[in-house]
């Protein structure tokens, strides 16, 4: 007898969990850079268009797929069509890989929260990061372990699995009710402190001054759509998984609008905080704003920010704790959601109860993470895997899922009806148009553009054999694993689908 599927206790609980999943490291370190590169204030136009024509429509699609099937991604796609199950397992494999390295960045942020007190990075934060903290050598495969990363990483896994063991309602929902308000408070405190710095206005000027020429540049649109896509946690199967725990009468469209705008609101707040701090640094050292921001990402967080913190006239330690503490909290809620995709899929697939599923699946992911990444080569493996799995995993799976749902299976009208049956905001033809036409075209263009760049030059100039394994190998690996898992005979699946469709079961 199948167990009753868990449900979110409250609507706000689901929303906070969905928002917590969407708000992650990328909102803090990737968005400000993309916005700056995309014409500053002028980015608002493509950004809003991307949010309304790709981000929120895709969120609604994933919510509808998940809530309708009341199942994890493989089973939810199988509910649409037996062969579509592969997409679900592909997303599960992608989530597995991402979870292994995402936790490592949180572990670095945990250490840096500690380093902030006393500003242990000294005069040269770059040498400190690469040498003292990561003990990074050359791109390659595991040669030696770094205990300073290993221990916080183990702690991150203990907390993540500790939350997941308690399940959706008592674990994820309760944790989100603590994490999200805490994150907002930490970040608002950080923004207030940043805005009081000399030169903050100069940073905000760089961030918001519109460069209208940029919006006629196609690559800017690709970058902005990419930011919206990655930032909203679409294409991982997370939103399908979270929506599968919704009640049958829960409002889908309204929830997607709130989650989408909440994620963007946080991004804007993060942009203001980060640019105010960068403006201070640029003024203080007499360099240009773009030299401080670099390329965003790990360098911005773990090299530029320590420099900024050290040069603050007062309360630098507090600023560091707020910044790295925010990274930890934002990262944890996203990590938990990524893990839940894999755990729920295994639970649905095997019928295993929650606690053993969490321990077996979570333990396997944690073990892979601990064996591969707290190493001298961990940074490079992480960087290559991240780039390839996002571009040719998450974005590609997103593209395939929207093309399959819209054009191959022609399920959009059914999903539209499903969402409209319980939502106050009703979806009409614009929703069909955005998902049927705009999203596939933009994602396809993004893919083509990325692929062209990839073939023109080796990513980060890493050795070809290293890239073949840690980059292309990982991207191809998740697809192969997805296909293989979908080929495993699954006797329980049809039984579960029939159970899921029996509404009001006990």
């Amino acid at each position, binding site marked *: 007898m199948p167990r*009753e*599927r*868990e*449900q979110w206790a409250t*609507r706000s609980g689901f929303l906070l969990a969905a928002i917590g999943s969407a708000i992650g490291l990328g909102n803090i370190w990737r968005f400000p850079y993309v916005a700056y590169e995309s014409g*500053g*204030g*002028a980015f*608002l136009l493509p950004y*809003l268009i991307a949010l309304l024509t790709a981000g929120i429509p895709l969120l609604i699609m994933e919510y509808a797929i998940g809530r309708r099937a009341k199942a994890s991604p493989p089973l939810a796609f199988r509910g649409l069509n037996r062969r579509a199950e592969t997409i679900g397992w592909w997303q599960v494999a992608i989530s597995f890989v991402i979870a292994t390295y995402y936790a490592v960045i949180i572990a670095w942020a945990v250490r840096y929260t500690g380093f902030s007190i006393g500003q242990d990075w000294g005069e040269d934060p770059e040498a400190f990061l690469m040498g003292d903290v990561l003990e990074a050598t050359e791109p390659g495969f595991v040669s030696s372990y770094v205990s300073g990363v290993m221990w916080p990483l183990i702690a991150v896994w203990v907390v993540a699995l500790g939350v997941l063991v308690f399940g959706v309602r008592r674990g994820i929902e309760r944790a989100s009710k603590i994490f999200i308000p805490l994150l907002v408070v930490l970040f608002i405190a950080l923004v207030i402190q940043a805005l009081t710095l000399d030169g903050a*206005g*100069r940073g*905000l*000027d760089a*961030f*918001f*001054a*519109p460069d209208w020429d940029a919006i006629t540049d196609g690559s800017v649109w690709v970058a902005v759509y990419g930011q919206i896509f990655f930032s909203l946690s679409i294409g991982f199967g997370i939103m399908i998984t979270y929506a599968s725990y919704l*009640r*049958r*009468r*829960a*409002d889908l469209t*309204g*929830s997607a*609008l*709130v989650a989408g*705008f*909440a994620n*963007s*609101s946080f991004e*804007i707040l993060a942009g203001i905080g980060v640019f105010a701090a960068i403006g201070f640094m640029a003024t203080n050292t007499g360099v240009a704003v773009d030299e401080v921001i670099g390329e965003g990402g790990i360098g911005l967080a773990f090299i530029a920010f320590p420099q900024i913190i050290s040069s603050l006239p007062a309360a630098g330690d507090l600023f560091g704790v707020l910044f790295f503490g925010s990274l930890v909290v934002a990262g944890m809620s996203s990590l938990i959601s990524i893990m839940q995709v894999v755990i729920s899929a295994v639970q649905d697939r095997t019928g295993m109860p929650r606690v053993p599923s969490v321990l077996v699946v979570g333990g396997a992911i944690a073990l892979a993470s601990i064996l591969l990444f707290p190493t001298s080569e961990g940074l490079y493996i992480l960087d290559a895997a991240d780039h390839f799995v996002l571009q040719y995993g998450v974005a590609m799976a997103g593209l395939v899922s929207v093309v399959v749902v819209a054009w191959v299976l022609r399920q959009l009208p059914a999903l539209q009806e499903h969402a409209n049956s*319980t939502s*106050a*905001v009703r979806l009409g033809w614009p929703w069909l148009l955005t998902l049927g036409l705009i999203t596939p075209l933009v994602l396809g263009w993004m893919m083509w553009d990325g692929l062209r760049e990839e073939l023109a030059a080796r990513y980060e100039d890493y050795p070809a054999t290293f890239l073949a394994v840690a980059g292309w190998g990982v991207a191809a690996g998740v697809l192969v694993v997805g296909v293989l898992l979908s080929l495993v005979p699954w006797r329980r699946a049809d039984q579960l689908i029939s159970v899921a469709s029996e*509404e*009001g079961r*006990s």
Partner: protein
Amino acid sequence: MSAGAVVMMIVTIAIVWGGLVAGVLYLRRHPDEVEDESETGL
């Protein structure tokens, strides 16, 4: 800050944060329909 930057900052904040507030208010005005007892899972 230049006038253009200030205007864009205000417009951005008004639209994005305004969108969030409007979404929350809209959801609050439309509570989920109450489900019958067999579906509540309680």
